[in-house]
């Protein structure tokens, strides 16, 4: 409230939009400006404040303990339990998200990190080990492979 009275929004408006709003004439003009600009909204706000003050005075001015829950009954109980909103939230959104999180985590652990990444790594390593077996160490095999290689190139070039 103090900030509103001091005109805080004019300071911050420079951050939000390029051209600052036109400044009103006086402090009083500043106070009355919201009522002139949007009478319904500002008037309802003022009315809410006045009603609230009156109700609070009427209920609590001379009460030893809070009379409202008794007056409201079932509605009061629901309000005390925060309209069971947390339980609703827990049952639907949180449980749903936990389930989806489990699915996503499983997918990430097994499919993406498992099959895709480790699979590629393992396949490449296996291919490397397999190809290495070509080097039997046997000279005759080497000579044969060399001649076969030449034959392959000849086949590719000539036919």
């Amino acid at each position, binding site marked *: 409230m103090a900030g509103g009275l001091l005109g805080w929004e004019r300071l911050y408006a420079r951050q939000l*939009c390029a051209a*600052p709003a036109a400044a009103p004439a006086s402090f009083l003009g500043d106070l009355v400006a919201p009522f002139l600009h949007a009478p319904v909204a500002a008037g309802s706000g003022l009315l809410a404040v006045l009603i609230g003050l009156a109700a609070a005075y009427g209920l609590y001015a001379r009460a030893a303990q809070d009379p409202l829950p008794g007056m409201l009954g079932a509605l009061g109980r629901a309000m005390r339990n925060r309209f069971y909103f947390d339980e609703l939230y827990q049952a639907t959104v949180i449980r749903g*998200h936990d389930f989806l999180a489990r699915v*996503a985590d499983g997918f990430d652990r097994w499919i993406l990190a498992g099959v895709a990444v480790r699979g590629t790594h393992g396949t490449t390593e296996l291919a490397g080990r397999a190809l290495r077996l070509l080097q039997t160490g046997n000279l005759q095999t080497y000579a044969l492979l060399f001649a076969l290689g030449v034959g392959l190139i000849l086949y590719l070039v000539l036919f």
Partner: protein
Amino acid sequence: MSPLTYILGWPLGAAIVLLLVPRTFRPVIRGIAILATLMAAVLAVKMFLRFDAAAAGYQFEQQVAWVRSLGLSYHVGVDGINVGLVLMGALVAFAAACVSWEIREREKEFYLLLLVMTGGILGAFAALDLFCFYFFHELALVPTFIMIGVWGRGEQKDYATFQITLYLSLGALLALVGLIALYVQAGAGTFDIPQLAAHLRAHPLSPGAQGFIFPLLLFGFGILVSLWPFHTWAPPGYSAAPSATAMLHAGVLKKFGLYGLIRIALPLLPDAARDWMPILAWLCLGNLFYGGWVAMRQKDFNRLVGYSSVAHMGFVFLGIAALNLVGITGAVLVMIAHGFLAALTFGLSGYLYQQTGTLEIARLGGLLRRLPFIGAALMMAAFAGCGLPGFANFAGEITVFFGAWQSYRLVTILACWGALVIGAVYMLRAIRGLLHGPLPEAWAGVADAPHLWRKAPFLLLLASLLIFGCYPRLLTDKIKPAVSEKVAPALAPEIPARPGILARPAPDRDAPQPPDASPAALRRAGAFPRNSRG
């Protein structure tokens, strides 16, 4: 000599000096590293403040011909897009050097690698030449490998370091092929980005060539930024890395790919960009939702933060996919904000690890009592990650949402859910598990950051988040004109701003109505020749 050359020269020069210092002079080694990164940070701040937002083109430029026959040159310069990134990189590097008190063995090699990595990162953000861009980024590859391997944590560190190195090399090589193909197809005989941009504006590439090169760049850079589904390298890598490496990598190095997309892929290949952005928009949901859901299941705090950084990249991708001024400005803002955030979070978790030896959330708890400063900073970091107003992340995320709303309604709605709800769930659960609740016996003796020097890096990063969160115009005033000038070929026509509600004069009913610039109307008018979904 441009200040940019000094900014990346101080760390690299200090690395060479460190070669000569004997390994036993520990305070000297630490001092040189901190001094070098401090100089870079101070110069970056000075440059940021002296930057003229209204000027077109690039500022603080320097160009030195490198290989004339190929059109390669050492060309550095800043415009609105990368001035904030250079600033963020320099500040994070300084914080990383300060945070490395925990390194007690082989400091010389550690700081040498850290300085090379810093120089590489800052050079990559400042580079205005395709070859330089790639060259500086790859400088960080070997230091990352060795740092995670030697000073890393956990039994998985060998696998993590090989995975991160090979996976990122694959992405970088794909991008390199894309860059070389771009150079070849453009036919301008130069790797210089401003010259290429001017040349391609006059003679755009054929749709076929663009359609081939753009996916290479998109997925090459995307792998570097942990685009879903190419993200599995990030969480194990970051959880195994020492704090300084994780701060630099997750905070700064990751942004390289996004910067490449904004600087190179979008302006030079605008037609292909329009085709591929819908796919990117849906993939970014993968980042946001999938990253968030898997983060919810993590038991280790570092892996959780790793997945959260994967999720945050979804925002930037969404902003880029929006292909409008607001969206891309928001994307750059999120990049800068997330850089500070990731650095802060990994720095703090590094402190926790150093004190307790573990980061399993189940085994920790109630630490806020013993660590008031670190705990408070961690809470602020968590809230920043959730998008609390007042922190820079909020400014960026909201801008991205406004921008993406114009292009992709459904994706934006889903993204909001993913960002705000899922992000809050895992972050707040983690904070509750770490900081609140009963304090186990084992951690009764942990100590908070003792003096200002130990708190300094965290204070610096928090201050940056708060400053840019409360006054995002410091950044957007610079980013907006640069984006509208440089990324213009790819941008959708801008929807003119309506008068704000705080303006006094009522709108003049007799004035001519602004042209209907909604996407539907534009499509009818034929602005998007191809089907754009979303």
